[in-house]
């Protein structure tokens, strides 16, 4: 999987979950290891509860465009389960590998009681039938255990790296965290990353 060129990765979630940040961190780490990386992002709704998706194109040979064609995702990293399903429906294929957070962020319509959120069983069934392999990680609980729900995004990167579907080693991502984050935030983020790594490895 990780040798495919280009490797098409989609990071998906809801505005405010730090989707853009982790795409950028993974992309920077890959550029450091000599890859060409292009990231296409959906902005605008990012702070206001909208669906947010980043497309990463990773290649040894060339820079690819910022949008992955339909049905062509190799890896999906989901920060929110229904957003993962949304992306699977559009960009999935029988070979896709999925790592997703299990904790919902309810759409406003669900929160205010005018729509319903799918059950865990429905989500798991769809994930299993539409991917080669799917992991569900309760990243938000791990993040809350570390003291801040926002760390769920870094926990999820840890799980993704442990799934061994990206040409990205744990120490390469840790180096990126060291280069990019202010020192007062580094320790907690490293912890979150390692908790994610351990969580998936234990499966």
């Amino acid at each position: 999987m990780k040798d495919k060129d280009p490797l098409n990765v989609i990071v998906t979630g809801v505005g405010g979950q730090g989707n853009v940040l982790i795409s950028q961190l993974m992309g920077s780490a890959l550029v450091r290891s000599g890859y060409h990386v292009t990231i296409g992002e959906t902005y605008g709704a990012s702070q206001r509860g909208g669906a947010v998706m980043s497309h990463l194109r990773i290649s040894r040979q060339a820079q690819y465009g910022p949008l992955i064609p339909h049905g062509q995702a190799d890896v999906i990293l989901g920060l929110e389960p229904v957003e993962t399903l949304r992306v699977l429906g559009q960009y999935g294929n029988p070979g896709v590998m999925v790592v997703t957070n299990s904790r919902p962020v309810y759409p406003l319509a669900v929160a205010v009681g005018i729509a319903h959120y799918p059950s865990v069983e429905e989500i798991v069934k769809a994930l299993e039938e539409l991917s080669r392999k799917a992991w569900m990680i309760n990243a938000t609980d791990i993040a809350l255990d570390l003291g801040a729900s926002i760390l769920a995004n870094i926990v999820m990167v840890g799980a993704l790296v442990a799934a061994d579907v990206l040409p990205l080693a744990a120490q390469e991502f840790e180096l990126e965290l060291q280069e990019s984050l202010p020192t007062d935030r580094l320790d907690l983020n490293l912890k979150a990353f390692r908790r994610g790594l351990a969580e998936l490895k234990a499966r």
Partner: protein
Amino acid sequence: MTSITAYEAGASQLLMGNEAIARGALEAGLGFASAYPGNPSSEILGSLAEVAREMDIYAEWSVNEKVALEAAAAASFAGVRAIVAMKQNGLNVASDFLMNLNLTGTVAGLVLVVCDDPSGLSSTNEQDSRPAAKWAELPLLEPANSQEAKDMTKWAFELSEEIKNVCLVRSVTRVSHARGDVRLGEPMAPSREARFAPTTLGQFTPLLVPIKHSFLHQKVNKAREIFESSPFNWYTGPEKPELLIVTCGSGWNYSLEAVKALGLESSVGILKLGTTWPLPEKLVQQHLARTDKVLVVEEVNPFLEGNLKELVGDTFATLGPLTFYGKRSGHLPTFGELDPDRVMGALGSILGRERVAVEPDYAKKAQALTGSLVQARMIGFCAGCPHRATLWSVKNALKLDGRGGFVTGDIGCYTMGLGPTGFFQLKTVQAMGSGAGLACGFGKLDKLGFDQPVLTVCGDSTFFHAAIPALINGVYNQSNFTLIILDNSATAMTGFQPHPGTGASALGEPAPTVDPEGLCRSLGIRVEVADPFDLQDTTQKLLDLMQDDSGVRVLISRRKCALVRAKEEKPAYKVRVDTEKCRGESCGCARLCTRIFQCPGLVWDDETHTAKIDEVICTGCGVCADICPASAIIREVA
């Protein structure tokens, strides 16, 4: 995150298109940068402001795009390389000056970057700004990715100085807000000998117009000549392709992808143009001669397609008949953004190839398993947003007034007042400041039978940008309306850039504060100030102002943006629902608190059938306590 000067020349850095544009300007010896924020352009000035102190250059958030262009032109006139950035709507604001600047010409390199937003992902339109290059007769460059965004911007300064005129760089969302690895060059120190020194009479004016216009044509011809050998134009593909794709900017990425996916490398060629106006005619003709079928791939309008056809019309005798495919032929959509799938569809239908993107069995299964589970995620006001509170009072004041009053809207976060979280209160939205302009007109229709109260809203940044002239117009012409300034001390929609009311400069240094209240009072306007979280007081003040019915009135609804408050302050209240008091579905309010008020922090509990507070999301503004008719929402000072 990592700044645009963090890496040494020669290194590769992952840069957003807008950051790459900023880096290109630094490598060209930029001395002056100005902009008004607007997606997808905001990060250009944002990333320059971040390094302005370190590079010892000047960067400002201007009050609007016209002033931004004027300020940058002054720098150019004084011999300093300058960049000005804006979104597509902003170019319209700046165009009055631009259409005189083009005849006037420039001294040091002046680059105008305009970032278009195909599909209007964060805009009210999807205007294609490229015809402005033809209209103003200025050279146009279109980068396709971050590397080109940097390289073209750097080169644009040289081109501008070669022809002594403004150079336009046109980006789109999928370039500006995409990231790619960029090989960095060396930043250059700017000239520090700024001096305005006219040498001839009328040098810095468009006068004498016909003569200056003829000079402008000489400049265009010179740019065309330079473009003929530009490294930003190239051809890849077979010597004699069955079909030639002519493309530019974002369209090039999708074309490459489509040709490869369909395995058409040996039969389809791609002419990638970076310099799209004026067209390098000799170069283009040379490639058009390869084939008799041409597909044009571009966003949004058939601008390149039209210019190619114009050229073919002029040279019909040598080129012979060509068949064009693209937007005019219906092979590509004439609205909305492109993507690789749309270009594959066009190529497939022209060449009779079918491509199956997703196996039908998988597609069917995916639809069955996810279709019903995946719902649209509507955007709306954040928990604790002052706009929700203001619009709640507006809704109630209009109802109490009972004369059919309405609100004209404007551009900012509060544009979402068109939708459910703003209780559908905004009835019009067009351009920056247009809410007040429309109110001026509505407020003068009394002779023609009009008797509805007129309200209009604008944010603090929009007020400074374009609402002030409309307000003065209303005073002078004795129109009759109430302007509500939604003062949240931020340009929130575009990323919290400072503006004249915030007391901070683009570099985050202290700056004089322009006070909207004092400004309005100086115009002789009756001004009230309210805290939107005090619903009763805000509603009463609105009613009073509406019923005053004489001239222009202003209500300043003042409360900091919830996202800013979350960073600066502790929540004011601890809010909870008293489940004893909440009558749930049997209450006559029909779930007013959740179904109507729609704050993400106040949710409906499907199990207990009562409202509840989501403590992770609630910001403790306490406003919902005032809307519950059963007083079941309890707010305690935190």
